[in-house]
């Protein structure tokens, strides 16, 4: 099983995609960022931008969690409702 990667907000415009499956599964969140940055330097930079957070399986995460097949990773620029 692959990893599911989601981009939200302006990250979608930077990358030109919203959702993809990724195989093989990188071991950690930072390894996933590296894989994406090697393919698309602009996206790699945007993922490290001010206020961009990551959620693993719909829970906000801090640090560098390990990833497993079937996980859903979302990259979230600053949020704003209302």
């Amino acid at each position, binding site marked *: 099983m692959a990893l599911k990667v989601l981009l939200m907000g302006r990250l979608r415009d930077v990358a030109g995609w919203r959702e993809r499956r990724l195989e093989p599964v990188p071991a950690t969140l930072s390894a996933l960022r590296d894989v994406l940055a090697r393919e698309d330097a602009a996206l790699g930079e945007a993922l490290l931008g001010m206020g961009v957070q990551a959620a693993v399986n719909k829970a906000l995460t801090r640090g560098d969690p390990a990833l497993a097949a079937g996980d859903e990773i979302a990259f979230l620029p*600053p949020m704003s*409702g209302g």
Partner: protein
Amino acid sequence: MIAVQTEPFDPAALLARFSAGRTDCGAVVSFTGLARAATDGAEVSTLELDAYPGFTEAAIATMETEARERFAVKDLLIVHRHGPIGPGEAIVFVAGAAEHRRDAFEAVDYLMDRLKTQAPFWKKETGPDGDRWIEPRAPDYADAARWSPP
């Protein structure tokens, strides 16, 4: 109660339903957020909000729970739209009912500050000058910082 939906909603109808039969509450406060036809002078033809299904609802439900713990409210309602929204249409409706007005005012004010800076939506304005992503403004973060951490 919370609802996150793409369908348009009518704030007046929500207020009518929310206030009906309340003989235990002296105060009902409502906030309606409307899509503007211009931001800082730039015309806006459509506002588009993206949500992250599941994650967005859960984050808003947490905010509602924290507001109930913080203020003496009898009831709260949060309805938030996503998808494309035209000028003058409602984006968000928040209502609070309380025995005394201060709790109702503060709960709705608090929820709007949380929603503006922490609700998982991403907003893009589309107009004749192109698209732009809208992120919280400095006053939004300043407003949110008025409330002590949970």
